[in-house]
């Protein structure tokens, strides 16, 4: 009897052990391990990936968003995208870095202030970035930092109840961040209008230059000369929703506490679906600085743009221009300040 049972058990084991489905395994379409993929992540990694995926779902709607993943991506990124597929995202496999929502995910080993090892996941999905550190012990995982959100100001709810009850409640929050260095690396986008050509001659004659490069590495025209600006077509599609002037001290690019408060107010009022933030940095009048009025005007708008990016405003949502001249601009523009505007698409 015992022998028969044992034989049956061994038979079952034998067949079970022999059953195989190849490297592709059996999984759901785009939801499980696929052909040639590495093994699914462990429990701790799954929990961390789920944490980031839940945050992303609040920023990019699953049913209407397709994410791109490069062929040969790391298993961690594959696992994350499988999780997104389960949530209803479209998944597109690309041979390079194509797409508006291209996914990259990095895992970094860190050390806490007390010397304990931490894991930090850094996710990029198009222009949105999410990053968070975790304390991992075996299969148990706890957040070790707030959730850093970049490239967006959308509200993100952080629910840490899936972690252990001992999770620090102080960490269940979002920190909006921005990478201002990335702005510097963008290829220059130059203007090639007739006005700019004329502006070169004007500059040579000692008159204020006609164009210069803004914080986003886009060449813009000097609004002092009275044209419609480099973003005329874009501005035509938008309506003014709010406007204020951030005043700077003479020959200064310091934003100051009042300026910072005003920038924060505009960041709070910014609606990502419909808004852009317009900046016009101004320096009209005499200056003792070597960078001249042009450098001062665009330096001021750059200072405000950086403050907005650090608060999570997407750089693409900022259009900064300038107005500069060694003489006053009358009522049209402030002498030393930045005009900040919320520009809204009509309903």
């Amino acid at each position: 009897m015992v022998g028969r049972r044992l034989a049956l058990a061994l038979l079952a084991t034998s067949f079970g052990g022999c059953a195989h489905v190849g490297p592709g395994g059996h999984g759901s379409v785009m939801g499980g391990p696929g052909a040639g993929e590495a093994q699914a992540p462990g429990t701790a990694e799954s929990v961390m990936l789920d944490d980031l995926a839940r945050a992303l779902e609040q920023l990019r709607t699953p049913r209407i968003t397709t994410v791109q993943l490069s062929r040969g991506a790391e298993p961690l990124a594959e696992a994350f995208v499988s999780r997104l597929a389960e949530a209803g995202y479209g998944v597109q496999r690309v041979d390079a870095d194509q797409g508006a929502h291209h996914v990259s995910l990095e895992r970094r080993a860190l050390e806490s202030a007390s010397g304990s090892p931490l894991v930090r996941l850094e996710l990029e999905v198009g222009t949105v970035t999410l990053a968070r550190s975790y304390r991992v012990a075996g299969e148990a995982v706890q957040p070790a930092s707030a959730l850093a959100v970049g490239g967006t100001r959308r509200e993100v709810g952080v629910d840490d109840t899936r972690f252990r009850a001992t999770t620090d409640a102080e960490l269940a929050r979002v920190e909006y961040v921005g990478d201002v260095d990335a702005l510097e690396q963008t290829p220059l986008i130059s203007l090639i209008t007739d006005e700019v050509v004329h502006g070169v001659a004007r500059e040579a004659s000692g008159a204020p230059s006609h164009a210069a490069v803004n914080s986003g590495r886009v060449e813009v025209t000097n609004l002092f000369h009275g044209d419609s600006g480099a973003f005329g077509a874009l501005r035509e599609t938008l309506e003014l929703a709010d406007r204020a002037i951030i005043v700077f001290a003479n020959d200064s690019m310091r934003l100051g506490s009042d300026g910072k408060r005003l920038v924060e107010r505009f960041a709070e009022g910014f609606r990502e679906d419909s808004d852009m933030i317009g900046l016009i940095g101004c320096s009209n009048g005499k200056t003792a600085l070597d960078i001249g009025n042009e450098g001062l005007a665009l330096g001021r708008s750059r200072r405000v743009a950086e403050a907005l990016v650090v608060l999570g405003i997407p750089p693409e949502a900022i259009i900064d221009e300038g107005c500069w001249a060694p003489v006053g601009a009358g009522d049209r523009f402030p002498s030393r300040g930045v005009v900040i505007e919320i520009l809204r698409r009509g309903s």
Partner: protein
Amino acid sequence: MRAERSITRRGVGRVSLLFGALCVIGCAAPARDLSPWLPLGGGDAAAFEGISSVELEHLALISTNLVSVLVQLPEAPPSSATLQLSEPDTAFGNTLVRALEEAGYGLQRVEADQGARYVAYRRSFAETDAGPVAEYELIVGDIVLRREYVSEDGRVLPSSLLSVDGSEAAPTDLVLDDTVFAEQGGEGAAFISGIRAADGTAAVDEVLVEASGPRSLERRADRYEVLSAASRRAALAATEDHPPSPLDGLERVRRTVLIFDDSETRRMGAANKRAVRLLVRDTAAEDLFVITACTAADGRDEAARARGARVIEEFLGHGVAPEAVRLAPCVRASYRHATDDSPVPVEIVQYRRSRGAG
């Protein structure tokens, strides 16, 4: 008691031998690698049970054949179209999903048949006077692709034109790469090749199978390459500007130069992608982006053409219409040596309708 234990031990011994024998018989065969046919994002390996690798290769070939035409249709460009599909539980369904993935389509799993580009498929068999025939059908939204194939002598060959319904593409605009079937060999046999549109217009050809016998699997055309070549060809056909068309009524507005890390890469990098986003952000109706990627002195450079296609993909991926992007022909301006792998430029010039122009 002792006798019973002894019997049990003997039983265990026999069972161990049996187990060992089963393992030798059952486990000696190496696990079949299904990765060439399963969807990259996971699939149903159970659907392949009882189907030989040769048959799976046939299904993959047929799937590739159908999808290689789908990618050329203006209604479903892979760079910007996301298709909806249910989890496949048939072998053909799995190889078809794999082909759609390889073609670069965005795939979205749905529970029922949601979506404007829901993917449906069908395989049906018929006994005809010409012998047994299998018809394969791929449906994507309103588009229907259909073709008959026959299996003979361990190979699969088309036995009808590929019919396309629900697309404005003319058969003469589509390229059907049926030479992949000829690679299976067949001693000089021939099969019909071509595309027929719903209105009856057709482009018909004949493909001769290589008399030299079948190529080994390793030497056959890579399915991914077949699909990406078809997709790139279609994208370039829609945007390549040769000879350059007039730019009447348009004036240059902006110019930027993207730098690719080397002459072979298709990776744009974050900075170049951001520049494209900024250009797309400030796009007015009727704007045109002219991309110059090739600066070869002899007017030909496939790597540069691929870089240009990559930039076009990026624009299309941001929702820019294909007619708003043009790939300019080579500008004979470079003395770059063939072995030069230093960073290479791609110029983008944005044109805008002149104020007052008709």
